[in-house]
């Protein structure tokens, strides 16, 4: 009996540790600085929406929001397209050549971004792809292709071979097999990968920090980081920025929890 109460207490404490800071932040985004400092845990004395109009009105964050939306959407879509094509190829090439191509692509998962970012920066600079959203999309694609291929190929290899034999007997070519058979059957893993990629690309900081100087091209995490310098201890304003930047994913998470959890786990299970 004692252990059951202990279990509940522990779970309760941990839930509070997770939720209280987030709720303090959410309420704080509607407070004045003095209200936040004197009553951090209570609801706002008076609900102020001025933080939001200030943060969004100055333009910086709304521009960043649009940039993030564009870059993330394109990065996720293109990584999925290229990744699923590659995964299909390596799953269907028989014998060692298939595994060799797969191994080469997946090897990239063990290269930390800091290891090749310098030559990448030089290359992108030469090609005029710095200070460009296209450049961000491109670097997002290549940096996450390995993990996308890893998840998708794992799934596609597990599909029963008989499907392919039947398709070949019916004279269905490789391309149509990919589009009308493999891809629809792989939908669960495609969805999981899509969410995993979305979380990574939406929150990506390193590459924008390296590649972007122009304030008009900033993405949300970079804009937030700059906020910090500007509004040193104006926490309500910082919190408003955090709420704006996190809202799309959190809302998505509330409705699609299961997919988010499956996606983020698929991405972390690499062996």
């Amino acid at each position: 009996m004692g252990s059951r109460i202990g279990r509940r207490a522990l779970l309760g404490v941990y839930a509070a540790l997770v939720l209280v800071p987030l709720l303090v932040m959410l309420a704080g985004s509607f407070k004045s600085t003095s209200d936040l400092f004197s009553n951090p845990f209570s609801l706002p004395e008076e609900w102020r929406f001025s933080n939001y109009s200030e943060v969004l009105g100055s333009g910086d964050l709304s521009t960043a929001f649009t940039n993030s939306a564009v870059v993330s959407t394109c990065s996720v879509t293109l990584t999925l397209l290229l990744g699923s094509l590659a995964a299909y190829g390596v799953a269907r090439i028989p014998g060692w050549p298939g595994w060799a191509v797969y191994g080469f692509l997946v090897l990239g998962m063990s290269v930390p971004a800091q290891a090749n970012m310098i030559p990448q920066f030089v290359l992108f600079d030469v090609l005029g792809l710095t200070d460009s959203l296209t450049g961000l999309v491109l670097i997002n694609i290549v940096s996450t292709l390995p993990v996308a291929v890893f998840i998708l190929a794992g799934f596609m290899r597990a599909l029963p071979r008989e499907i392919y034999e039947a398709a070949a007997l019916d004279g269905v070519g490789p391309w149509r097999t990919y589009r009308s058979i493999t891809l629809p059957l792989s939908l669960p893993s495609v969805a999981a990968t899509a969410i995993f990629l979305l979380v990574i690309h939406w929150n990506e900081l390193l590459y924008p920090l390296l590649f972007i100087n122009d304030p008009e091209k900033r993405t949300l995490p970079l804009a937030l980081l700059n906020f910090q310098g500007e509004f040193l201890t104006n926490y309500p304003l910082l919190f408003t920025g955090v709420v704006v930047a996190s809202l799309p994913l959190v809302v998505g998470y509330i409705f699609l929890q299961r997919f988010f959890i499956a996606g983020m786990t698929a991405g972390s299970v690499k062996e």
Partner: protein
Amino acid sequence: MSAPSPVKTGPSPAADPPFPERVAHRRRSLRRRYGHPAFYLFPLPALVLYVIFFAIPTVQAFQYAVTDWDGYSADYDSVGLDNFGQLAGGDDLFSNAMSNSLKFMLVVVVLQTLFSLVLASMLTRNSRSSTLLRAVFFLPTILSSVSVAFVWKFIYDPNFGLANGALEGVGLDALTSSYLGDDGKAIYFLALTQVWFHTGQMMVIFIAGLQQIPRELYEAAAIDGVSRWQRFRHVTWPMIAPATSIVIAYTTIQSFKAFDLVLGLGGNPPQGSLDILSTRIYTSFANSEFGYAAAESIVFMALIALVTVIQRRTVKLTQSGA
């Protein structure tokens, strides 16, 4: 795939079949062996981009590492292994970042693995309350590191922050701290933030592992009347070995890469007490020391590989040795 000459296409039947049939036959056997030629086109777009923008730059990092290039001059000199010599001996900033990275990694790996395993073992059943709590614990994972950094900046604020406020509220004034302002402890407080950030993600991996343990094993253990600890030591722990390896390996790599969190909490460039290898490399790069930063990045990569191997060995040892 070089086409073998017709003479060598295996033992030819006594009467050679007509030419088109032979071609068709050979094509069939090639396909059986190597698959449809079109299969090789599918990975091609990904491969092209990956080679140009990922693989080649990775190799180039090694070339840069033996130069003194500043990133913009047209010419630069090869300096051999001087960069590495300096990293090994005379660079206080680098050794500081190295020691911070290792402290950070150790604390994060131990606490995060422990917390996620304990939480997972309490939420293994698929009841409604378990599912809800899992979703709550997982929530921080989807936030951006910069967002998490701002929330924790406020928690750790020495004057107005939640942590000191809460401690004073319950009369534990003695435990209040300046957190990130305390140079000796800052890296450990950073580690706590990282643990808060990713425990839920690792918990989910442990839950999947725990759910795969057959009930019969526990029933057998109950019949044998073993203690709880023994049950954990001899049933649960060996059975979740794959999950544990994944959690530890992933947590390690994630902790070495905790770049955004450090910049968010420690500033850019980060204060020395929070500087870890990933931010150190970035700072060298931002200071136009391209060659030197490349050398740092190679040490970084080697260190991650080394630590991963050591850990894998350790985990295996505790799991196989009875």
